[in-house]
């Protein structure tokens, strides 16, 4: 320990309150200071702004898809337009919103704060990853809007390599580029979490949020290169006829599915794990109670990240995969239930005997738990071989993964956004509006997607532009729900922007939460802490009322 740290550990050292440096938002004002910043907090806001824009685009596409499905015969859009719309929705939401959503914004902003570091380990790499992300995503989005792609976000060969007549190659190139941004972010987080923790911040004193982001970073590192390769092979095959999936030559399109899902199943946990981290923080803070079974929850994060690499074949039970492989993959998929159950039951136990405030973030967290559970158990249904033989590629699957990705990730994202908004911006959002928005989103979401479980069990295949008339009633219900959902989304979009100028000034710790990020000012100064924090207490130290915060 350095002499400086010894001085800082001395409780008699007076707190520096005067001559406080300007916070990171006001440290510099020029546009240049934003676009060439290496401050992880500013980069997080750059990400936040860009993915919000992408979310709006993806949501518009979703709205048009639901609009089209109000009538069974697909009169509203042509079949090609419809196919391009759902591809646009999937590609934007998965690759450019959900995957970067929580890690690149909250992770970027909070990991250094939570472990008491001045910045990420490689700040310039962090900025580069945002530029790479923008390059790839804007490129693909322009292609999707101007030209259109009709392959679906899964790009299955040989349709994508040979038969589609749309702009598949440029779309793929953009997605590949964005993959590098994921890798750089993951690499930065891994190194930061390993090497940048402040004195006393041991692994088991880190918030669960940091644990889940560590797990996610590992998935970024271990999975992303494989999808990069798989998509590159598609590009090579489509552009230059150099490829290995062409069935006319004896190639195996199922091999692409293996490579694709080796990343894309873990990608689900790229979306879900950070959400779990956020919800753990919210549940602890709004119950004013230590996370129940902290160590199990921490291990469960790493466990999920590992097991998730062993289950990809459950996307391929009816795809010509061997029966043995399907059975093995099905069994391993059930094992995912173990760490997931740990998380859910431990959240519930955390709330028990807490001191609970039902503020907006907590409402989102509770909604998350409910929807995640529903999404999770329907996932078990789909992991059951004989059931999947019926439900594969139906609306049941669509409903299942929307419960995980929207009910899960999106609610966690919004909950976390409200919780840390004061820290990000130094402003409070209007609480009443927040609660109304949370309720609308929860209700709208369920009305939209619950009918789709039934539709799927009835046998309505997904990606259908027109459908048999007996499914219309449920489809209309679903579309009606999506309008409620859309209205719900406008609430946070509106009042959060409003609060930037008119919101109440936020104190350093508006929620009486524990955790290093709440020990610094809102918004934090440029290097996060005026002096390097020293940790000599357990995480979520809510039982200790004497310590002021943190």
């Amino acid at each position: 320990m350095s002499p400086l740290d010894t001085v800082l550990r001395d409780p008699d050292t007076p707190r520096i309150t005067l001559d406080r440096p300007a916070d990171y938002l006001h440290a510099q004002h020029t546009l240049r200071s934003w676009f060439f910043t290496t401050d992880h907090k500013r980069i997080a806001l750059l990400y936040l702004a860009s993915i919000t824009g992408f979310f709006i685009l993806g949501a518009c596409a979703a709205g048009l898809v639901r609009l089209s499905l109000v009538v069974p015969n697909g009169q509203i859009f042509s079949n090609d337009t419809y196919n391009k719309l759902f591809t646009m929705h999937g590609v934007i939401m998965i690759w450019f919103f959900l995957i970067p959503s929580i890690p690149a914004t909250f992770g970027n902003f909070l990991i250094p704060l939570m472990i008491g570091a001045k910045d990420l380990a490689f700040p310039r790499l962090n900025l580069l990853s945002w530029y790479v992300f923008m390059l790839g995503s804007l490129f693909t989005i322009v292609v999707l809007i101007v030209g259109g792609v009709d392959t679906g976000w899964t790009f299955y060969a040989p349709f994508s390599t040979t038969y589609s007549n749309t702009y598949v190659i440029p779309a793929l190139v953009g997605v590949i580029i964005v993959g590098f941004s994921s890798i750089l972010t993951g690499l930065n987080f891994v190194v930061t979490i390993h090497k940048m923790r402040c004195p006393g911040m041991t692994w088991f004193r880190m918030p669960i949020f940091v644990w889940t982001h560590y797990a996610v970073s590992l998935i970024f590192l271990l999975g992303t290169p494989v999808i990069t390769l798989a998509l590159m092979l598609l590009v090579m095959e489509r552009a230059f006829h150099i490829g290995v999936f062409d069935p006319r030559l004896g190639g195996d399109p199922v091999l692409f599915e293996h490579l694709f899902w080796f990343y894309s199943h873990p990608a689900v946990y790229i979306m879900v794990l950070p959400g779990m981290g956020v919800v753990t923080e919210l549940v602890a803070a709004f119950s004013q109670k230590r996370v129940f079974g902290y160590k199990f929850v921490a291990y469960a994060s790493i466990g999920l990240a590992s097991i998730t690499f062993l289950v990809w074949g459950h996307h391929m039970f009816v795809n010509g995969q061997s029966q043995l492989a399907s059975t093995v993959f099905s069994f391993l998929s059930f094992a995912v239930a173990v760490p997931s159950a740990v998380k859910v039951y431990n959240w519930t136990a955390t709330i028990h005997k807490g001191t609970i405030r039902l503020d907006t973030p907590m409402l989102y967290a509770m909604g998350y738990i409910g929807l995640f559970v529903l999404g999770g158990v329907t996932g078990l249904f789909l992991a059951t071989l004989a059931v999947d033989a019926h439900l594969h590629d139906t609306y049941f699957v669509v409903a299942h993964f929307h419960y995980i990705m929207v009910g899960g990730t999106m609610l966690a994202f919004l909950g976390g956004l409200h919780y840390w908004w004061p820290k990000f911006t130094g402003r409070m959002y209007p609480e009443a509006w927040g609660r109304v928005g949370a309720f609308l989103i929860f209700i709208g979401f369920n009305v939209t997607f619950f009918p789709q479980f039934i539709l799927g069990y009835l046998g309505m295949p997904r990606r259908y532009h027109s459908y048999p008339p007996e499914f219309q009633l449920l489809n209309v219900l679903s579309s009606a729900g999506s309008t409620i959902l859309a209205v719900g989304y406008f609430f946070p979009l509106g009042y959060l922007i409003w609060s930037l100028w008119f919101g109440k000034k936020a104190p350093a710790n508006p929620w009486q939460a524990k955790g290093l990020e709440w020990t610094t000012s809102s918004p934090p100064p440029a290097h996060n802490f005026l002096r390097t924090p020293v940790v000599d207490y357990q995480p979520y130290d809510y039982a200790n009322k004497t310590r002021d915060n943190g």
Partner: protein
Amino acid sequence: MADIGIAAEPVDLELAEQFTTKAQQREAATLGMWAWLVTELLLFAGLFLCALILRIQHPQSVTLVTTHLKFWIGATNTVVLICSSLTMSAAIVTSRLGWRRFMLGALLATASLGSLFLLLKGFEYYQDYDEHMMPFLADRSYVLAHDQASVLFLDVYYITTGLHGVHLITGISILLWLTWKASRPAFLQTHQNRIEIYGLYWHFIDLIWIIVFPVLYVLNR
């Protein structure tokens, strides 16, 4: 050789503002490079997997292609890269000793060996072209056209060697840039660990080729 000792320069690291100690900074950089190398390995592993699956599904076609590859050029190239690994190790060792001039020489030798590899590879591609081994060229017949599945493994060959070549080109470019940077006097005092970090990358490209060579040229003969 004159009996004059080499003047050793001070070797150290300049502390970046986000770090507290130099040891922390050094380890962070090494860990970062290892994390990157993990991604590189998985990238190539996907291609090795394709090669393996093709061997399982079309063993005869794969053998057919392998016998048409330029085994001896591949072997020579492996030797070239193993040599370049040695010179890279020499660069790392001398950078630690503070022998800047020696180190610059070793770096340039490494870059030259890398370029030699690319030259040989280019020559090999030319021979492939000459022997009508490029099925993707529309205006040129393909010598193994009677066995369609052979195209698949041949494609894996081109993609793998091409991807490795891209890595090598990038590697050589960074190496030359680094050599230029390192030729300035204060370099070793402020950024010595860049040589070590870069050395990891270079060794790893060699390692990938050490796997590529048997996977494409040897194992399926």
